[in-house]
C-alpha cells in the first residue's frame, strides 16, 4: 500500500490514547490511524478494549460516568476533545452503528429521518429524498419502500440492523463506527451487512469491531489487534492474518486463545 502514490491519509488518528473508567485503565497508550475510505477492523478477545477505543472515536464514552482519558484523537487534524469542538457536531461527522440493532419505536421513515430532523431539516421533499437515498445505500429500499410508515419494529433482525446503518448514513457522516454490527444476525443477514460494508467504503471511512476473525479478514483492509488494553499490532489485513509480526497476534488469529 505504501507503494501507492495515492496512499490514503489517516482520517482519524489516536495518539497515546489512554482511557480509564475511574482508575481502571481500559486502554493504554494506543496510537492508531484509521485510514480514509478504508475499512479498519478492530479485533481481540473480550475485554481487550477494542469497543472502548471505538466508542472513544465519537466520544460516546463521555456518557459513562467516571470515564476519563489522556492522549489525543484527531479527526482531520482537529483534536476532538478540544474545547471548541461541539460533541453534537462531532457525532454528526462520526456516526455509529451498535451491536444490538436499536431502532426507535417509530416508523421506518421516522427512524431514518431522525438524525436529519434533530439537525433541523424540515423540508418534506428533502427529507423524503434523503431517506430514500440512505435506505438505498443500506440496500434496504426495495424491501421497505411500500411500508415506510409502518413500525420499524416489524422488520427482521437483519433488516433492523441495516435500518440502523441507513439511519447513521442519513446524516452523511464521514466516518462510520460499527460495533460488532453482525454479531446478533444469522449468516445470510451477516453476508448482506458485509456486502454493504464493501460498498460503503467507497464513500465512508469505516472502523468495525468484530469477534469474528473470518469477518475481519473478509471486510477489512487493515486490522488492529488489541490485547489487554494495548494495541499489539496493526497492519494490512492480509499481513496480520498470514504473517503477523507478534507472537500474540499469531496465537489469536490462529485460534490458540481468545
Amino acid at each position, binding site marked *: 500500500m505504501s507503494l501507492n502514490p495515492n496512499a490514503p491519509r489517516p482520517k482519524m488518528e489516536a495518539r497515546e490514547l489512554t482511557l480509564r473508567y475511574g482508575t481502571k485503565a481500559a486502554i493504554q497508550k494506543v496510537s492508531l490511524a484509521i485510514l480514509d475510505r478504508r475499512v479498519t477492523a478492530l479485533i481481540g478477545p473480550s475485554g481487550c478494549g477494542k469497543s472502548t477505543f471505538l466508542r472513544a472515536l*465519537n466520544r*460516546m464514552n463521555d*456518557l459513562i*460516568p467516571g470515564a476519563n482519558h489522556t492522549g489525543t484523537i484527531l479527526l482531520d487534524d482537529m483534536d476532538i476533545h478540544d474545547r471548541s469542538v461541539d460533541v*453534537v*457536531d462531532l*457525532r*454528526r461527522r462520526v*456516526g*455509529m452503528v*451498535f451491536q*444490538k440493532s*436499536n*431502532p*426507535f*419505536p*417509530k*416508523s421506518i421513515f421516522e427512524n431514518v429521518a*431522525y*438524525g436529519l*430532523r*434533530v*439537525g433541523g431539516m424540515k423540508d418534506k421533499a428533502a427529507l423524503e429524498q434523503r431517506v430514500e437515498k440512505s435506505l438505498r445505500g443500506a440496500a434496504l429500499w426495495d424491501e421497505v419502500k411500500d411500508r415506510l*410508515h*409502518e*413500525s*420499524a*419494529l*416489524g422488520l427482521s433482525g437483519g433488516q433492523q440492523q441495516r435500518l*440502523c446503518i441507513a*439511519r*447513521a448514513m442519513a*446524516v452523511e457522516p464521514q466516518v462510520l463506527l460499527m460495533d460488532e454490527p453482525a454479531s446478533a444476525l444469522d449468516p445470510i443477514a451477516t453476508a448482506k451487512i458485509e456486502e454493504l460494508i464493501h460498498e460503503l467504503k467507497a464513500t465512508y471511512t469505516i472502523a468495525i469491531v468484530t469477534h469474528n476473525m473470518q469477518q475481519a479478514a473478509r471486510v477489512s483492509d487493515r486490522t488492529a489487534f488489541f490485547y489487554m488494553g494495548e494495541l499489539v499490532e496493526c497492519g494490512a489485513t492480509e499481513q496480520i492474518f498470514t504473517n503477523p509480526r507478534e507472537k500474540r497476534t499469531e496465537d489469536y488469529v490462529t485460534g490458540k486463545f481468545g
Partner: protein
Amino acid sequence: MTPGTRRAVGFALTSLTGLAAFIIIAMLAIILFNVVENGAGGVTWTFLSQPPSDGMMGGGIFPAIFGTAALTLLMTVAVMPVGVLTAVYLHEYAPPHSLFARIVRVAVVNLAGVPSIVFGLFGLGFFILFVGQGMDRALGHEEMYWAQPGILWASLTLAVLTLPVVIVSTEEALRAVPMDHRTASLALGATQSQTLGRVVLPGALPGILTGAVLAISRGAGEVAPILFTGAAYFLPDLPSHLNSQFMHLGYHTYVMATQSPDVEATRPLLYSTVLVLLLLTFALNLVAVIIRTRTRRKAAGAH
C-alpha cells in the same frame, strides 16, 4: 424432605397464596355488590342533575359530582408537570450519586408516608394562611379573598399528596426506556434535550399516564386533605372561582353518614352517592387506561 412432605408443603403454599388472592377479590365483590344492590335504584337523572334538598334528605348530588371532577382536574393539572419534571431531573439530569437527588428521593418516600389528614392541616397552614394571606396583602384585598378555603388550595393540597405517586411512576417509566434508544439518539447528533423530547418522553408516556391514573384515583377519593382547605358541607351553587368552596362526593358521603338527623331517610341517598363516587373513579381510570393503551400502541408504531 420426603416427596410426601414436599408435595404437602407445595399444596399448602398454593392454597395459602390462592386464598389470599381470593380474599382480595371477595372483599371487592362484597363491597361492589352491597353498594350496587342498595344504591343502583337511587341513581336517577334527577339524582345526578339536582342539588341536595330537604336538609340533605332529598334531591341529588350534582354539585358534589361537579366539585369532585373540577377538583381532580385542577389537581392533575398541578401535579403532572411538577411530578414529571422532578422525575426527569432525578433520572435524566441529576449526576449519579448526587446528594441532592438522594435527598429528594428520601423526601418523596417520606411524603408518601405522611397521613392524609396532615396534608389537610398543611394545606390550611401553608396554602391558605401563608400563601393566601400573603397574596391578599400583596394584591391589596381589603377582605379575605385568597386567605380562605377554596378549590384552588384544595386541589394544590391534593397535588402535594399525589406528587410521590407521579414521581415514582414517571421515574419507573423513564427507567423502562431502553438505554439503547438514548445512545442511538445521541450518536445521531441529537442533544440531550432533543433525546429527551423525541425519544425518552414519548417512550415513557404510557408509564407517565399510568402515574396520572394512579394519582387521579388516589386524589378523587381522598377527603381528609380537603376538609379544611375547601370542601363545603352544603353548597347548592357550583364553584365559579378558584377561591370558591365546593361540594365533594367523598365529603358528602361522610357528612350524610355522620351528620344526618335521620339515618334511615339518608341511607338510600348515601348508597347512591357512594355508587356514583365509585363509578366516577372507575370512569376516570377507564379513560386514562384507554389513553394509555392508545399511546402505547402508537409508541410501538403500529397503525
